[in-house]
C-alpha cells in the first residue's frame, strides 16, 4: 500500500465523482417525478391536450434535470481531467 | 379507559390460555424448560401490552413531534422491561430462549390470528 500524492488525489477524485453523481441524482429524480405527476394529473383533467402536455412535461423535466447533468459533468471532469 | 379495559379483557386471557395449553403440551412431551420459557415470555408480553394501555394518556393530545419523542422514551422503557425475560432465559437454563422469544409475540399473534379469522369468515358472504 503506497499512499502517495498522486494516488491519494486519484482516490479522492474517484470517490468525489461517485458522491457527486450519487447525491446529485437524488434531487432531480424526485423533482422530475413531481413534474411527471402533475403532467399525468393534467392529462387526466384534459386528455385532448395530451401532445402539448407531453412536450411541456419534457421541457420541464429537461430543465429540472440540468442539475443532474451538472453533476454528471462534474463527475466526468473529476474522473478524466483530475 | 373503557376501551383499553375491554381490549385487555379480549386478548390477554386468550394469550395466556394459549401459552398455558402450549406449556402443558410441552410438559407432556417432557420439555419443562420449553414450557417455562413460553409462559415467561407470554407473561411479559401481556404486561407490556398492559403498560402500553396504561401509558396511553401520556401519549395522546400532543403534537406529532412531542408524541414521537414521548413514544420513543416509553418504547425504550418498555423494552428495558421486555429485555428482562430474555436476560433471565439466557442466564438460566430453566427457561428455553426460543420459546421465551415466541412468548414475547403472543399478544400480537393473538391479535393477528383474530384478524385472519375474521377475514376468512367474512369472505364467503
Amino acid at each position: 500500500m503506497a499512499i502517495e500524492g498522486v494516488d491519494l488525489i486519484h482516490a479522492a477524485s474517484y470517490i468525489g465523482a461517485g458522491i457527486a453523481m450519487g447525491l446529485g441524482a437524488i434531487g432531480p429524480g424526485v423533482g422530475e417525478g413531481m413534474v411527471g405527476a402533475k403532467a399525468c394529473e393534467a392529462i387526466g383533467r384534459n386528455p385532448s391536450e395530451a401532445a402539448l402536455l407531453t412536450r411541456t412535461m419534457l421541457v420541464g423535466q429537461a430543465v429540472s434535470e440540468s442539475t443532474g447533468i451538472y453533476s454528471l459533468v462534474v463527475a466526468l471532469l473529476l474522473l478524466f481531467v483530475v | 379507559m373503557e376501551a383499553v379495559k375491554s381490549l385487555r379483557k379480549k386478548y390477554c386471557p386468550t394469550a395466556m390460555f394459549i401459552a398455558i395449553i402450549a406449556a402443558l403440551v410441552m410438559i407432556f412431551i417432557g420439555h419443562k424448560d420449553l414450557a417455562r420459557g413460553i409462559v415467561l415470555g407470554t407473561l411479559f408480553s401481556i404486561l407490556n401490552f398492559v403498560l402500553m394501555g396504561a401509558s396511553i394518556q401520556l401519549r395522546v393530545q400532543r403534537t406529532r413531534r412531542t408524541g414521537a419523542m414521548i413514544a420513543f422514551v416509553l418504547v425504550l422503557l418498555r423494552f428495558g422491561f421486555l429485555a428482562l425475560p430474555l436476560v433471565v432465559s439466557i442466564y438460566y437454563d430453566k427457561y428455553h430462549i426460543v420459546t421465551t422469544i415466541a412468548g414475547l409475540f403472543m399478544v400480537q399473534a393473538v391479535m393477528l390470528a383474530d384478524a385472519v379469522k375474521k377475514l376468512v369468515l367474512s369472505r364467503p358472504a
Partner: protein
Amino acid sequence: MEMDIQILVKLAAYIGGGMAIGFGAIGAALGEGYAASQADMAISENPEKSSDIVRNMLIGQAVAESAAIFALVVAILLLFIAPQDPTIVTAAALLAAGVSMGLGALGSGLGSGFPAGETCTAMVKVQDPKVLSRMTTVMLISQAVCQTPAILAMVIALMLMFVGFGGPDPVKAVALLSAGLCMGFGAIGSGAGSGLPGGAACQGIGRQPEAQGLLTTNMLIGAAVCQTPAIFAMVIALILMFVNLGDVPFNPYWAAFMGAGLSTGLAAIGSGYGGGMAAGASCEGIARNPKTVGVVTTTMLVGQAVAQSPVIFGLLISFILLFKGYGEAFALAPGMALLAAGICMGFGAIGPGIGSGIAATSAVSWVARNEENAGLLMRMMLVAQAVTQSTAIYSMVIALVLLFVI
C-alpha cells in the same frame, strides 16, 4: 493480540446491539407517534367515537411494535453472545447483524404506523360497527405484511450471528459488514413503503365498505410487489455472506464488496418507497371507483415495475462488482474507484426511485377517475418515469466508467 480481539468482538457486539435497539425503537416510536397523533385528531373531530379509535390505535401500536421487538431480541442476543474462538470476522458479523436488524426494523416500524394512523382518521365518519371491525382487521393484516422486510433483516441478522464464517480473513469481514448494511438499507424503503397501501386500503374501506375484498387483494398485491427491492437486497446479502472466491487479495476486494452491498442496499430504498406510493394511490383509486379495479391494478403494477428499474441498475452494478475479478492492487485508487461505483449507483437510485413512484401515484389515481383515458395516462406515466430515471442512468454510467474505464 488475543486480548485485543476479545475486546474488539465485545465492542462490535455492543455497538451492534445498540444500533439494533436504537434504530428499532426510533422506527416504532415514529410509527406509534404517527398513529397517536392521527388518533388524537380523529378524537377531537368526533369525541363520541373515542373508544373505538383508542381501541384501534392500541391494537395498531401493539402490532407496529413487533418489528422493534425483533430488534430487541437480536440486541439482547448480541449483548450476551459468547462466540467460540473470536476473530475479526466474528466482530464484523456481530456488528453487521445489529446494523441489519436495526435499519430493517426502522422501515417496518415506520411503515406499520401508517395503517394504524389512517384507520384512526377514517373511523371518524364510519357508523356501522361491522365496518369498524373490518377496518381494524384489514389494518392488522396490512401491518403484518409490513413486517416482512424486518423479518428478512432478522433472518440475515441471525445468520450473521450464528453461522461460522471461518478464519480471520479481513475480506470476509468487510463482506459481512457490507451484507448487513445492504439488508438493513434495503429493508427501509420496502418496510416504509408497504405501509402506504395498507393505510389507503383502510381509509378506502371506511369510504366504500362493499369494496373491502377488492381493496384487501389490491393492497396485498401492491405491498408484495413493493417488497421486491428488499428481496433483491437479501439476495445480495446472502451472496456476500456465502460466496467463496478463494484466496483473494485484500486491497481491491474490500472495496468491491463494500460497494456491492451499498449499491443494492441504497438503491432499494427509493424503489421500495416509490412502489409503495404507487400501491397506496391504487388503493385510494379503487375506493373512489371500485369498478375500475382491473385497469387501476394493471397501471399500478406497470408503474411499480418501472419504478424498480433503479434497483435493477443497482443490482447490475452489485453483480459486476462481485464477480468481475481483480488483480491485487498496491495503491489506494483502484479500490476507491470500486467503492465509489457502489456509492454512486446506490445514492443515485434513491431519488429516481421515489420520483418514479410519485409519477405513478398521480397516474394511477387519475386512471381511477378517468377510466376512458387509461391508455393515454399509462403512456404518459411511462414516459414521465423513464425521463425521471435518467439521473439514475447517469449514475449507472459513472459507475460503469469507474468499473471498466478507470
